[in-house]
């Protein structure tokens, strides 16, 4: 059932799902690329929900890439041995 361990798995899988999104193949096609955010004079638009999501995704992709390798590996080994 739902406990702390399950919550950890949920968060880990969600972060994995964000980190696995491809910049070239997926995010640019639907216009969520973090590179081409250029609103011209609409400076107030940088606080919109979509832009926040874009910056969050790019932040997770850059920041969590290397830690995720280690965490995923340890979880896989744990599940193989004790799960």
């Amino acid at each position, binding site marked *: *059932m*739902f*406990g*702390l*361990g*399950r*919550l950890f798995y949920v*968060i880990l899988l969600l972060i994995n799902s964000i980190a696995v999104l491809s910049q070239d193949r997926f995010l640019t096609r639907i216009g969520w690329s973090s590179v081409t955010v250029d609103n011209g004079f609409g400076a*107030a638009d940088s*606080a919109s*929900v979509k832009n*926040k*999501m874009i910056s*969050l995704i790019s932040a997770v992709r850059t920041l969590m890439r290397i830690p995720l390798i280690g965490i995923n590996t340890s979880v896989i080994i744990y599940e193989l041995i004790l799960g």
Partner: protein
Amino acid sequence: MFQQSHRPPSSPPLHHPIPQHPIPPMRSPPPVQQQQPLNNNPYIPRSGASEYGEGAGGAGEGRYGNLFNDTTAQVGLQVGRNAMLAGQEYVEQNFGKYFSMSMPTLKSYFNVSNNYVLRKLFLILFPWRHKPWARQMKRSEVSGTIEGYRDPRDDINAPDMYIPVMAFTTYILLSSILAGIHGVFHPEILGYIASMAFAIVIFEILGLKLGCYLLSISNESQLMDLVAYSGYKFIGVILTMIAGSFIPGLLIKYIVFLYTFSAIAFFLLRSLKYVVLPESTVNAATSMTTTQRQRQRRIQFLFMYSFLCQFVLMWLLVKS
């Protein structure tokens, strides 16, 4: 320099002038020049003269030890004390930095009185007629500037941590007791329920934080405020569980659940308004940037949180 130039004429029989010049004049003559005036000069302070004489003579061992205690040891003690104080200060600073809330901040959440707890419990269960929902500011007595919010003891609208912590513990114990009444108690059930309740609270806080980030709500309030507000729902859960287990009939349980849920949702809706909609406070910078559309979004988010999210979480807590 002066002595080096004087030395060669005064001591002509030296065979090796180069290595002897720098060393002997520095080592041997100065002590001789100092000791002689020390012993003879009447203007030198008495303590200094006696110290030198007794130290050199070795007579009067006790007085020598006393002197050592009085001056050098005291200086050493003072230096040590200063070092200790500096170290303590450093440790305290870093301790506060690591936990992002210093101890006084956390202490103010537990600064409650009996009167406050009773009134707050009544407010959570019957929030419909309560009128002023804004938290009172604490002003400094000297300059009158705002120093933050008042403690729960003085202000019923301030969030405390006492009621949530107690309700959390009571929830765990109560569900264990109910399991015991139904004959399915096992020691594991304590840890299991605690883990589940913790996970639900953490999930709620994470969702709230994510929503605050996405809606660019400048979060001036502490994280502990949100934890406290999310912990108030355990009171409704406890009441529902008691009603459902000691009064026969599912209908009463559902009625109690719906009533406590709507009361807590209303309470959260009114209490969290100052977090989500900072226009009510005097903050020119944020009210300039928040447009009408953003405000609408924030109200929708607050409504979703306090009604839908609370409903699901409370139902999960009641069922298990």
